[in-house]
Each structure stands twice: as C-alpha cells, then as structure tokens.
C-alpha cells in the first residue's frame, strides 16, 4: 500500500452509521487526508487512512465515495455492528470534509484487509488458481459469505477478482471487499453480470437481484482458473451476441471440462435464468458434499421458423426483442401491423406473449387512458413483453426499474439530457411498472418497489418545483445527498440537516437570488412526502415575481421547521425577515401589514421559522384582506363617479342652479307682493 502523504493533517469524521461510542467514551474516528491508499481503492472512490482514537493500533481505511451517485446506505445500516465472516467488517459510514473548499464526502470505513487482491498488480489481470484450490479458496468461502448477506436481505453486487483479498497465511478463504460504496453492481465489468443485467446502463442495473452475485462468483471462478478475464477480447455488442447465442457457460467457461466438479458448478452458477441458477446454499452443498440440485431444465429449443427483422431471422422472442430495440421506427411498423403478434401466435406458439403484445399495440388499451403510444414507448413495452428478463430498453437507454434512480443521478451529474428524458419517460408513462407486471415471479422486494415507482410516477408528472425530475431523483435515491449547489458540499443526507446548513450558508455566503432551487425543493419534498404542489409552485415563478418565490420559500422552510426538534434559527430568521418585504407588500391593508411586520419581527428574534410561516401565510388574514380590498376598490370607483358627476356634468349643475334660483325668486316675489298689498291696503284704508 502506497502512502503518498507525509504531513498528518487530521480531519474528524461525523459518524452516520456505526457504533457512536467505544466503551464509556464517544467514538472518534479521524481521517488523514494526506495519506491516500490507492491499493485499496474501488472504482469511483478514493481510499484514505482512518485512525480510531480508541484503538490506534487498528489500521482502518475509508473509501470516499462519489457524492453525485447514491451509495448503499440501507445495506450499510443492515450491516451495522455485524462482522460477517468472509467479508470486510463495516466499521462505520461517516462524513468528513475532504477536497477543495472543505467539500464533504461520504466515507465507508473498513479495517485493512488481510491479504492481497486476487489480481496481478502489473497487468490487472486475475491471478491464476489451480482447479483443486478454487473451491476451498474462493467459491466455497465466498458462497458461504453470500449466504450471510442473503440472510440480511442483501446482495453484495461487487464479486470479482479485484475485490477479493486472499490471506497470505493459514487456510482461510478469500475475503470479500467493499460492496457498499456505489449502487449495486454499478462498477462491475459487464462480463461479471448476467445478460439480463449486463445490457443495462451500469448504474441502472438495479439493486435487487441476489442471484447475480452467484453469476459473478461463477465468472470470477472462471477468471481465476484461466488467469485472465473471460471474454476480454469481445466488445459489449459481441459479448451480448455470444451470451445470447451460445450461452454464458460456452462463452465464458468453455475451456473448463463440463464433467469436472468445477464444470458442473459453473454450469449451475452461470445459468441465464435467475430462477434456474444455483443459489449460494446450493453452491456450498456442491462444494462440500457434491450434492447436485434438481435439474430444472435448460432453455427450450426453438426449432421453428423465425421472424425476419432487418434482414436477420430471429427464432426466439428474446432475440427479436433485442433486435427491435435497435431500430424503433421499423420495429413500430411491424408491431402496429400485427406481424409480430401473428408470428408469435401462429408460428412460435406463444399465445400468452401474443395476447400480451396485442394489448400493448392496441390503441384501445384502457391502461393508456386514450393516448396513442409514441414509437419509443411502444417498442419499449413490446420488448418487455418479448423478453421480460431484459432491462427496459427506451431509445438509447437500458435500465432495470430499481436502477432508474441511480441512473437518473448519474445522468443529472453528467447533465445528460437525453438519458434524463428517457428515464423520465420510462417513469412517467408507467413503463417501469409495466416491466414489473410482466415478471412471472418477481421478488417480493421488487413488488414492493412498484409502490415506490407508482408514487414517483405521480410526482414526476408535475412540473412545479418539488416535483418532476428532481423529485424522482430523490424519491428513487433515498441515500443520495442533496445536490443543490448552495449546500451540496455539506453532503446533506438527512432533511433535518437542511435548516442548520442553510443558516450557515446565509451567514457566510448568502445567495443573491433564490434560496431554494429545484434540487433543494425536490429533496425536501421527497423527504417530507409533500403531495400537493400549490404551496411550492411559487418557487418556479420568474425572478421578477419575488413575492411568489419567497411566499413558497417561507412555507417550505416553515414546514421543515415544524417537524424539527424545536431548535431555533435566530440569524437565519433575521435574514429571512429582510427577504419577506415582497410578500408583505402584497398585503393590501397597511394597518394589517404593519401588524404582521411587527409580529414577524418579534418571532424572528426567537428564531421560530414555523411560527413565522404561520403568521405570514395565515389564510384567513389573506382572504379577509382580499375581500376588504375588493370592497375598497368598489368604494373608490363610486367616489370617482360621484366626483365626475359633480365636476363634469354641466347639465346637472345648471338644472340644480335653476331649481334653486326659481325657489329664491319665488320667495322674493311673494314677499314683495305681500309688502305691496299691505302698503296698498294701508293707503286705501287711510
């Protein structure tokens, strides 16, 4: 192991999974960032020396993971505190600042393995092991270890020679290395995956397929027997053709005598069909007692007329499924004309498949809610019907349903818009759920995953922040750290860490515009299981509509705070108060506005974000304000009309003047008449 560092700069590790105490004391693990251990690195990780301050004599190392793809946190949690013989003991999963700007990285921490990898350092090729030693040294111990993993409902996902460590002394078998630092099978070379998984994007191979570990063990055994990676001269397409045409045993272990004990074991371990593949227990029984499991039969021979597509004859539905995906436009034509259905029904004798395909092609399928399937979806569904074990093929993307999340994370990290579109289409159109429906006996975990897919589909269809792509990203990757640029370097896994981190960020480097982007909204909405978009839709408003943006922001922060443990965020609340003017300006009544401003200022002193949101977004207050404002506007219009009448209506003014003038004149005339009559009468009488 090469140690590149000389200066020991220690960094404390925040333990997320693992024993938090060592005896009576708090456990303290520290990272030595200057001591990189390249010999222990896994693909996509960097290895560093770790020191356990309570056991300084125990050598540990940590794999710093790629923060853009999810690691297997749930599996790590299941392995907490358990030392499974035959595999590296998981000491802890932690978080520590590492790299530029103290960006945090997740660390999967193990003890130094006893022994060296089963590869030749100079060439990277597997070491060669004799046939008589392969069972006691590798196949038996690794299968026994896989049984322990299976008992915990886990698969390993990284069984290959360069992840096996052979102790230098004693009669111990090979030790399984890390299987947690990346999505299950994400870094496995294609040759170590069964064809149903190998065709998928590496990170999209899915996590729920324990039998894949046995297949990988079979290929590992073949590689160690040969002293080279089998099929290494074949490119991906050629390998797929060979595996599909000749089968895995012939392609990868053709050099092994099929009658030998290892030949029999390889035939069982490399079976293309997961249900017919040997289990880990069956492998161990064969290794120990040479007890062969009942033969479940091989693949049915297809001696019949094939279906010609793109000039090539395909004798099996699986072969045709693969070919259809290569040219979706032409595939769509033959599918819509019913040619494939006819072939399945009349020639291939596959009535069940024909009926299923007919339902897919039918425009009247009630599952489609009246929409006409576009070509990519049609071909994808047809391929699933024809080969239910293969990954979902959608345009250029191949993925298994439980691998959509990691694949989406990788595509987001690479800003690969085409793949994101494909994955979202698979999700939104229910193709992933259709894939699960087509499985004859899906594992229980996969059936449970269908419920996750369904809710993710509903959320993915919406466009508001907190939904759509980012919601799908976090719904389908529960262990993916929040990727929002503002807090990405803090490696937030737990939604309860969002508010403290935001408080730190606005204190040190406050954002100019929005506080919550679509990543952060998606992360929070996923963790809080927010189902309605009306309160968060403002986060997507144009920059000019600041009132909507901050209204939704304070709602989301308030909701987040309401579920926390009562911690107060005084500086954050004060900062937020200064950003809420646009929202307060929307409150029409100035008296009410002043009251709310005063109230919020008082609450902000206490740092209670939840109370701030409640006070500001009081629906009764806003409704009453809107109604009163409407009344005020009516009153203003009435006053405006009255003034116009008084000042601009000359006819009205003249009429009033004449009426009043006539009244004056009449009174004066009668008064004068009265005086005159009295005077005349007086004159006559005198």
């Amino acid at each position, binding site marked *: 192991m090469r140690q590149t560092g000389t200066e020991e700069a220690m960094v404390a590790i925040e333990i997320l999974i693992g024993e938090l105490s060592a005896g009576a004391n708090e456990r303290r693990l520290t990272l030595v960032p200057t001591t990189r251990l390249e010999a222990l690195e896994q693909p996509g990780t960097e290895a560093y020396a770790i020191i356990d301050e309570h056991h300084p004599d125990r050598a540990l190392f940590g794999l710093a993971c790629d923060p853009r793809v999810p690691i297997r946190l749930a599996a790590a949690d299941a392995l907490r505190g358990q030392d499974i013989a035959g595999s590296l003991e998981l000491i802890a999963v932690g978080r520590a600042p590492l790299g530029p700007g103290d960006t945090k990285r997740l660390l999967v921490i193990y003890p130094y393995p006893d022994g060296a990898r089963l590869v030749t350092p100079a060439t990277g090729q597997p070491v060669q092991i004799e046939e008589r030693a392969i069972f006691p040294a590798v196949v038996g111990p690794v299968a026994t270890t896989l049984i322990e993993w299976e008992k915990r409902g886990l698969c390993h996902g990284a069984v290959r020679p360069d992840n096996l460590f052979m102790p230098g002394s004693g009669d111990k078998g090979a030790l399984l290395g890390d299987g947690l630092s990346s999505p299950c099978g994400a870094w496995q070379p294609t040759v170590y995956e069964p064809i149903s998984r190998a065709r998928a994007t590496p990170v999209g191979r899915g996590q729920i397929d324990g039998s894949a570990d046995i297949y990988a063990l079979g290929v590992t055994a073949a590689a160690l027997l040969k002293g080279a990676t089998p099929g290494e001269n074949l490119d991906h397409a050629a390998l797929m053709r060979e595996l599909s045409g000749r089968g895995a045993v012939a392609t990868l272990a053709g050099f092994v005598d099929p009658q030998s004990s290892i030949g029999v074991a390889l035939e069982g371990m490399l079976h293309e069909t997961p249900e017919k593949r040997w289990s880990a227990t069956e492998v161990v029984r064969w290794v120990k007692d040479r007890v062969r499991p009942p033969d479940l039969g091989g693949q049915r021979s297809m001696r019949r007329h094939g279906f010609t597509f793109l000039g090539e004859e395909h004798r099996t539905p699986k072969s045709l499924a693969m070919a259809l995906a290569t040219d979706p436009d032409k595939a769509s034509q033959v599918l819509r004309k019913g040619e494939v259905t006819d072939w399945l029904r009349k020639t291939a004798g596959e009535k069940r498949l024909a009926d299923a395909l007919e339902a897919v092609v039918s425009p009247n399928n009630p599952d489609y809610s009246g929409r006409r399937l576009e070509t990519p979806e049609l071909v994808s569904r047809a391929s699933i019907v024809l080969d239910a074990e293969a990954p979902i093929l959608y345009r250029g993307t191949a993925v298994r349903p439980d691998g959509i999340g990691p694949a989406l994370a990788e595509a987001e990290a690479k800003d690969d818009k085409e793949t994101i579109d494909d994955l979202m289409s698979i999700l939104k159109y229910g193709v992933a759920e259709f894939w699960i429906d087509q499985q004859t006996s899906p594992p229980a975990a996969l059936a449970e995953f269908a419920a996750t897919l369904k809710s993710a589909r509903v959320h993915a269809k919406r466009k508001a922040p907190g939904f759509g792509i980012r919601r799908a990203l976090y719904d389908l990757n529960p262990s993916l750290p929040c990727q929002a640029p503002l807090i990405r370097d803090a490696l937030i896994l737990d939604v309860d860490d969002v508010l403290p981190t935001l408080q730190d960020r606005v204190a040190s480097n406050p954002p100019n515009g929005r506080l919550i982007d679509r990543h952060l909204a998606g992360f929070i909405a996923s963790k809080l299981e927010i189902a309605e978009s009306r309160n968060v839709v403002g986060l997507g408003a144009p920059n000019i509509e600041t009132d909507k943006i901050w209204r939704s922001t304070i709602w989301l922060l308030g909701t987040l705070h309401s579920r926390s443990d009562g911690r107060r965020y005084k500086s954050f609340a004060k900062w937020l108060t200064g950003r809420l003017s646009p929202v307060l300006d929307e409150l029409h009544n100035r008296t009410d506005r002043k009251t709310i401003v005063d109230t919020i200022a008082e609450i902000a002193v206490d740092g209670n974000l939840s109370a701030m949101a409640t006070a500001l977004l009081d629906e009764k207050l806003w409704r009453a304000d809107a109604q009163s404002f409407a009344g*005020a506007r009516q009153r203003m219009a009435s*006053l405006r009309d009255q003034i116009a009448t*008084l000042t601009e209506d000359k006819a009205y003014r003249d009429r009033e003047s004449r009426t*009043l003038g006539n009244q004056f*004149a009449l009174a004066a005339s009668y008064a004068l008449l009265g005086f005159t*009559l009295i005077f005349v009468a007086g004159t006559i009488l005198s």
Partner: protein
Amino acid sequence: MSLNSESLNSEPIERRPRHDGDQIMKLAGYSIYVLLGMAATTSLLFAPGELLIAVVGMVPAAVALFWDRSPGRRTAQCVAAMNFAGVSAIMALAWDNGGSLAAAAELLTNVYVWLVMLLGAAMGWVIVWLARMVAGRVIIGVINHQVAQLKEQQNELVRDWGRRVLDED
C-alpha cells in the same frame, strides 16, 4: 336644495324627478287660479273698474304663464306676483276714483299707469334672473365643498390600502 352633504357621503347621486314638489306646486297653481276666479267674480259685481284694470294689467303674467311649461311654472308665478304687485297699486287708484268702468278706462289711457303695471312684471323677470345667478354661485360652492369631502375620502382609502386601490381593471 336637493344636494346635501349626507347624501354625497354615503350614496351615489341619483337623478330622480321630484314628484312630491311638483305636486305641491301644481296644487298651489290651481289655488291661485281659484282665488283669481273668486276675486274676479266678486270684482265684476262690486268693482268692475278694478276688475278691468286687473284683466288688462295682468296680460304680461298671462303671457308668462302660457310661455312657462316647467313643472310648477315658478318663473311664471314669480312674474305674475310682481305683475300683480304693480297692478294692485293701479287698482287702488281705480278704487279711489269710484271703481267704475269709465274711471278705469281713463286710467288706462295714462302711460304711467301702464309703466307701473309692466315694470312690476319686468321686476319679476329681473328677480328670476338675479336669483338664478346667485343660486348658481351657491351651487358651485356647495359642489366644491362636496368634491373636497369626496377627495378626502379617496385619500383615506389610499392611506389605508395604498395606491393600488386606485387601479382600474
């Protein structure tokens, strides 16, 4: 006066025909005709000279009554009242001269007699004209006061609700 501050403060101005006032003025007009008829009958029996003076002298009032078609005929009433004031003085002269038709006819040949009666009617027109002018000034003053009150109410609304309350959709 139909404008008052209370009505402007609360309700928009309504332009309604004034039915009640019209009725009263109509009745008043009829009463005058009845009184005039009674006076004429009495005068025909006991003072035919005064009656002649009145009939001839009130011609301007008759013309005004015929011309004025406004509800209540207030202008005509005003002219008639002042006309009668002038005529009453001449009737008193006729009374002094014995009240005969001959004495009355002699008086009617005097141009000053005519001047007094017609000036009375003219005075009625002058009063109407002056009263309307004064009333016009009064109305403008009232309107200005009421507009100021309404604008103050508008300012109060703006103080309470901000300038957005002025927006017209």
